């Protein structure tokens, strides 16, 4: 890995060194949490500066302060050694700061051009007529290899293309300091590769880049310097050449970590679940499956990679019986289950951890107990002839909370009052407790790895 890293990372520019952006003691508080706790940071002109930290470390918040989306509570921002008063994004843009957000800020229903010029004075203002600026947009698009027509609707582009539109949009507005917030989180490996090249390209053009990530390897790969954040505080800044992946992991988490994942070799057995030439219809708002073959064997962890929107959703829906299968067979233990109700599939041991715990996995307004029993509250022993057995339910919930280390004051508390991690554990406990034969986990580590994975016990 190291050999590859060093060939792709060019030596730093000679003109780096001047501080172009300086943060002094930035404090940003949200109700109940200090998201940025006296953060001081110097970014040098022309460098690729990585901001590394776990989810919730405060990286996005810090950059949103710089971009004028959040108002800081304390501290100072200096751009090119001048105190900068950034109250709205326009102030930041005027200072040459651009930001590509974690969730793209593009209007899907608008064309590439419309997104790029949105909010700007056009050449022939107030007409949308672009005049000479069109040439500049074209040049930028060619330069950065946006192989999509400028008149295409952004919603129809791939995630990688959308990201390029965001970058072009920032550059078109004159960005010389470009903040990329978790740019690789949504990309497949090839697209990430392309992004790294693009970053080199920008760097060669003298653009200063702030690259936010929580992935150690890519940070080592693209950056000149790395700043680590943890729980709202800035831990340290290192030269990329003078640090290691182990050291960074330790700084990031705050304790020594073992990066090798303990994984026993599995002994795959017979086929548990088999999809044979499965095809689904396109009218569900998700990309359909086309004659998909897939066999999951017992004891195997079957990883499924791919960027969102390439059919994972349809796959899960087909397996769980959430949408009709138009062609092919879904075989579970030798039996075609296409006609089987979802509830029945669950009771026979197919479990599903949904992608979005807020919209699909949990009813946040209900108690932890209710959520833990969401799939079987009407069955014995939790329900008896339509009456719910609260004592049994609560005892069951307490057991699960202990077993899965769900931290909540009591089982009756509303699920929305739990932290995100504990909410995730509620879903996990619900899915694992019945000892399923097949477990489908969509993005189980949320943001850590792209794709969905199927675990089979």
């Amino acid at each position: 890995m190291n050999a590859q890293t060093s060939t792709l990372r060019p030596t730093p520019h000679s003109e780096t060194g001047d501080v172009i952006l300086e943060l002094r003691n930035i404090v940003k508080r949200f109700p109940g949490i200090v998201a940025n706790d006296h953060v001081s940071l110097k970014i040098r002109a022309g460098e690729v500066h990585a901001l590394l930290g776990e989810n919730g470390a405060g990286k996005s918040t810090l950059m949103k302060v710089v971009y004028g989306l959040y108002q800081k509570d304390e501290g100072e921002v200096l751009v090119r050694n001048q105190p900068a008063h950034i109250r709205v994004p326009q102030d930041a843009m005027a200072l040459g700061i651009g930001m590509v957000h974690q969730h793209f800020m593009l209007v899907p229903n608008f064309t590439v051009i419309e997104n790029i010029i949105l909010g700007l004075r056009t050449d022939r203002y107030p007409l949308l007529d672009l005049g000479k600026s069109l040439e500049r947009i074209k040049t930028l698009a060619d330069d950065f290899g946006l192989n999509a027509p400028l008149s295409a609707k952004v919603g129809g582009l791939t995630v990688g293309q959308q990201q390029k539109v965001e970058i072009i949009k920032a550059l078109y507005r004159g960005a010389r300091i470009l903040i990329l917030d978790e740019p690789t989180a949504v990309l497949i490996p090839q697209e990430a590769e392309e992004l790294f090249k693009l970053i080199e390209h920008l760097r060669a053009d003298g653009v200063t880049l702030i690259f936010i990530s929580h992935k150690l390897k890519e940070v080592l790969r693209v950056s000149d310097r790395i700043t680590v954040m943890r729980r709202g505080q800035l831990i340290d800044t290192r030269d990329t050449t003078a640090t290691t992946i182990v050291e960074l992991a330790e700084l990031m988490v705050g304790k020594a970590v073992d990066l090798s994942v303990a994984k026993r070799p599995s002994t795959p057995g017979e086929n548990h679940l088999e999809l044979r030439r499965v095809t689904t219809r396109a009218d569900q708002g998700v990309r359909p499956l086309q004659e998909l073959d897939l066999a999951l064997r017992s004891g195997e962890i079957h990883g499924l990679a791919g960027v969102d929107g390439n059919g994972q959703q349809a796959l899960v829906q087909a397996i769980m019986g959430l949408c009709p299968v138009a062609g092919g067979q879904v075989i579970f233990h030798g039996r075609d289950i296409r006609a089987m109700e979802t509830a029945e599939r669950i009771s026979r041991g197919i479990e599903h951890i949904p992608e979005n715990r807020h919209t699909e996995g949990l009813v946040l307004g209900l108690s932890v107990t209710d959520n833990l029993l969401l799939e079987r509250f009407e069955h014995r022993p939790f329900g008896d002839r339509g009456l719910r057995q609260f004592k049994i339910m609560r005892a069951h919930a307490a057991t699960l909370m202990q077993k899965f280390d769900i931290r909540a004051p009591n089982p009756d508390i509303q699920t929305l009052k739990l932290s995100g991690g504990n909410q995730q554990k509620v879903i996990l406990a619900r899915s694992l407790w019945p000892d399923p034969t097949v477990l489908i986990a969509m993005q189980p580590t949320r943001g850590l790895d792209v794709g969905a994975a199927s675990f089979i016990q």
Partner: protein
Amino acid sequence: MVRAWWSRGWVRTTAILMAALVVFWIVLELAGEETRNIANGIFTILAAPEFVKAALIAAIPLLLAALGGLISELSGVLNMALEAMMLVGAFVAYTVADHSGSPWIGLLAAGLSGLALGLVHAVFTVTLRANQVVSAVALNLFAVAATALAFRVLYIHKTFQPAPGFEALHFPVLSDLPYLGVALFQHNILIYLALLLIPVMWFILYRTSWGLTLRSVGEHPMAANTVGIKVNRVRYIAILLSGTLVGMSGSALVSASGINAFQENLSAGRGFIAFAAVIFGRYDPIGAFLGTILFGLGDALQIRLQAYGVEVPYQLLLMLPYVITLLALVVFMRNARGPAASGTPFVEEGAG
């Protein structure tokens, strides 16, 4: 296969129309001499230029209201208060024209009254982030009661009198054309202004920076915010403009009555039809026009059927334009996709 074909709009339209014609023809063949005579009479009525003229006159108030509604809707704020703004606008237009003697001052005042209602709606929905539907319902209820009360107080002792209205125009050659002259070129100025507004609105929405800004705020306010657009300011402007236009639609409604008169609940649900026309017209000025002209045609037909003495309770005939419009809109203009952020107030990130 059949499904795929059926889903194509024009295939469906043609098929339905042809089926309707066949059924109609069979019914005529089966019916007796008398029915055939009635049918002939109705055909004669429909073929007259006055039919188109009446339809246009009836459609214009809805068109203005729909265009107003469209601006607000595109900015992401539902304006279900079209009915209220139209009714209040009509009352103000009538009263002010009556007292000032000028329909133009009446029109202006109607616009201002709509603007005032728009301001109320904007304060509730944008600043206070109240539910947009609830705010509109409140305004609608208020408008019915307030106009009825004010009308009774102001006019109870007076004998009825029409207010001064807009004169019909006469164009040199055009107005004397056969058929077209009567149908299209003998209207009052308001009607031409309203029709002109269709391309003007289209141009502003799709060919100017401001139109792009407006639509971005309705589609993805957060994205608009990140490029420095003041989302709530744009929404305020949109709602105020919307209110002004819809208020003016009230003036068109008074003049559409033919005798420039007001009566309680004059709008009679037309604001809601205009609201539907915006949605089913796919959030497009031309679509909105098609929806409202349909209503006009239904209205003109209904009046003629009443006058012709068709033996149907007149209340049923009164329903006709509403039913025709809604049916046609639902059948032919389904799958309209509105602004993505429609109905949701904008809260700036990290504002708390």
